[in-house]
């Protein structure tokens, strides 16, 4: 037992004081509890190892370098059945991230709209939004996923229906978009003077065209903000706000257009060929069903958070803003929302985390996320339950902690600065 080393050590220290003396008792209890906890963990680990040993199994991660031998339909990086299990896991991880990012974005948009509309003075609109929230958040998300999938499979036409003289289905938007019961095909961006791919450690390639476009776009936005700031300075000095919006829009829009022109941008349309459409971007049923179900489900919760956040801002704030002559739109964006955000952000983080974790239900519709590859097929083909589940837990932990770190940083920026 440690004795507190300090200035005011009692003149005589007896062992019994650890229990009887108020100054030490809490420390004694905490130490014992800590040791007990460590013993429990140690026991769990040794028990696991012992039982694995009894089964003749060991803990070994070398299976990650073996060829996976299975195919994955949706892959954001190069992958085939000769690639390693590790690569299969990364393909799955990227699919998880894709549906999480798409889901969080759509859920936020839908959630904010529904949340604001629920406060509407229009009785019908407010009630409709209430129905939406209650229906979506009171049915398990797994059912929503399966339901959306069943709708997509059951109602949309088969690729075969698009064929022949008397086709029963046709493509939309001037033969550019095909809705089938296997997914949606939309035109894809193609570059005739493409700059090729940038290889990252030989692991995967990043399109240089895309990087260039993003760079030009961000540079444009940066320049536009500089212009805006200068205009504000002029306003504070002279009281007149110079008209800069045409220049700012031009700064953002024109450079990417020039780049697109030089790269020879054109659209690749999907065409029915053999069994399926080919060309174009193929959004699989499984992705769409999972994305929509997760988004609409989580949006119901976000709507409630937004409503709570807005309601929590005192009515006096609105009245004060109105009395200063600020218009309702500006009142919302300049007065109410900044204050509401402080309340909205923290619970919003946990909704984003929920959505990300709920995406592990993907296998219900055959979407190959990291649970489907690493925690599904790889686990099954290699029989390494402990190792794969541990890795899987690490993956989700990593994603969740990253999401929460980013949002906490944002929360720190918008929260009330107290001095």
């Amino acid at each position, binding site marked *: 037992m440690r004795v507190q080393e300090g200035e005011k050590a009692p003149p005589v220290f007896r062992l019994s004081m650890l229990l009887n003396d108020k100054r030490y008792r809490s420390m004694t209890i905490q130490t*014992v509890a800590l*040791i*007990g906890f460590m*013993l*429990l963990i140690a*026991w769990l680990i*040794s*028990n696991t190892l*012992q*039982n694995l040993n*009894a*089964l*003749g*199994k060991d803990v070994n991660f070398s299976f990650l370098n073996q060829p996976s*031998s*299975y*195919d*994955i*339909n949706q892959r954001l990086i190069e992958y*085939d*059945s*000769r690639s390693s299990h590790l690569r299969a896991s990364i393909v799955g991880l990227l699919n998880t991230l894709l549906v999480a990012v798409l889901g969080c974005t759509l859920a936020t948009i839908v959630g904010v709209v529904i949340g604001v509309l629920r406060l509407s003075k229009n009785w019908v609109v407010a009630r409709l939004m209430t129905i939406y929230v209650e229906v979506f958040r009171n049915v398990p998300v797994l059912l929503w996923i399966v339901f959306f999938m*069943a709708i997509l*499979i*059951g109602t949309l036409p*088969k690729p*075969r229906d698009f064929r022949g003289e008397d086709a029963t289905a046709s493509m939309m938007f001037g033969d550019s978009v095909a809705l089938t*019961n*296997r997914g949606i095909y939309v035109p894809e961006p193609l570059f005739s003077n493409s700059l090729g791919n940038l290889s990252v450690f030989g692991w995967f390639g990043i399109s240089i065209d895309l990087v260039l476009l993003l760079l030009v776009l961000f540079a444009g936005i940066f320049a536009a903000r500089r212009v805006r700031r200068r205009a504000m300075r002029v306003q504070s000095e002279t009281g007149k706000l110079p008209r800069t919006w045409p220049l700012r829009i031009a700064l953002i829009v024109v450079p990417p257009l020039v780049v697109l022109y030089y790269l020879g941008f054109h659209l690749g349309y999907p065409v029915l*060929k*053999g*069994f*399926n459409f*080919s060309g174009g971007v193929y959004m699989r*049923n*499984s992705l769409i069903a999972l994305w929509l179900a997760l988004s609409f489900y989580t949006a119901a919760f976000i709507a409630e958070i937004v409503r709570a956040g807005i309601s929590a801002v005192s009515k006096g704030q609105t009245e004060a803003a109105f009395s200063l002559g600020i218009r309702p739109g500006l009142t919302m964006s300049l007065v109410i929302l900044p204050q509401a955000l402080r309340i909205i952000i923290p619970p919003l983080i946990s909704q984003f985390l929920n959505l990300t974790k709920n995406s592990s239900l993907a*296998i*219900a519709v*055959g979407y*190959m996320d990291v649970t*489907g590859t690493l925690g*599904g*097929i790889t*686990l*099954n*083909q*290699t*029989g390494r*339950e402990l190792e794969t589940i541990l890795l899987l837990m690490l993956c989700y932990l990593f994603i969740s902690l990253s999401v929460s770190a980013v949002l906490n940083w944002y929360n720190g920026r918008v929260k009330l600065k107290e001095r």
Partner: protein
Amino acid sequence: MRLKSLIAATTVVGLSAGMSVAATLDDVKAKGFIQCGVNTGLVGFAAPDADGKWDGFDVDYCRALAAAIFGDPDAVKFTPTTGKTRFTALASGEIDVLARNTTWTFSRDVDLKFTFVGINYYDGQGFMTHESLGINSATELDGATVCIQTGTTTELNLADYFRANGMSYEPVPIETNAEAREQFFAEACDVYTTDRSGLAATRATAEDPNALVVLPEIISKEPLGPLVRHGDDQWADIARWVLNALIIAEEKGITQANAKSMMGSTNDPEVARLLGTEGEYGAMIGLSADWALHAIEARGNYGEIFDRHIGPDTAIALQRGENALYTEGGLLYAPPFR
């Protein structure tokens, strides 16, 4: 003092948890029933009937096993397992035996630490497609969307087959046969691939079986059989010899109906040994002398079970083919009972 007792208690618990590997037969006898892992629903092999009672080719093997141990074919608890959950269920002891159209492979036998006790169905992977697509051969499947049960050997065979033939495909991974049917019947996939017996079973349950064709290619060997955990040879022996007993019974003409009368009347020493009127074979395996009699009386011999569930007279209409006795040109060959 308190700490010491905590350590002591923890050690005791740890030790007892570490030594939980016991003889499966004793556990089963203590429970009063066996736990058998079967398919979540594949008509003919394992599916609940109209009364909710499990029925099928694999189910009857479990019933024979239960009858051999308890004399009661109903002393079984069936656990539906998916392609993904089956091995974990067996390894963790949730089930005692797995009879779920499971292919015997090297890595499952050696690396996953299971013991396959025999082969009750010689199968091969095939493709089923919609007749209206006008496909006659699997080599015409380039670019097709293929529904496949995830966590199976068929998933790996499929990848190998298309790769070896330089064709591309779009896999649609699916958890259970029921979901596969839904997607395949709605033509969300062009092709459904699994063992040919499974294809026949799925086809039999379609609204219009004639609108579906099974392509001629067989792209793999799929020897299906029951399996148990590594490390309990007595239990594996029981599971193996119940299967063998059913096959020997067919060979010797012992049926569900005549088993009891043959017991008294037979002149064939092997039949007498099998039915327990000669020798101490029951005691050797740890069961009663008439264990094989009970197993055969439960649901009949191998041929009877086959004909009842998947044979030519059923909706699934599978021919015996490789699954005929070796004496009739098939591959079924049980070691001698002596």
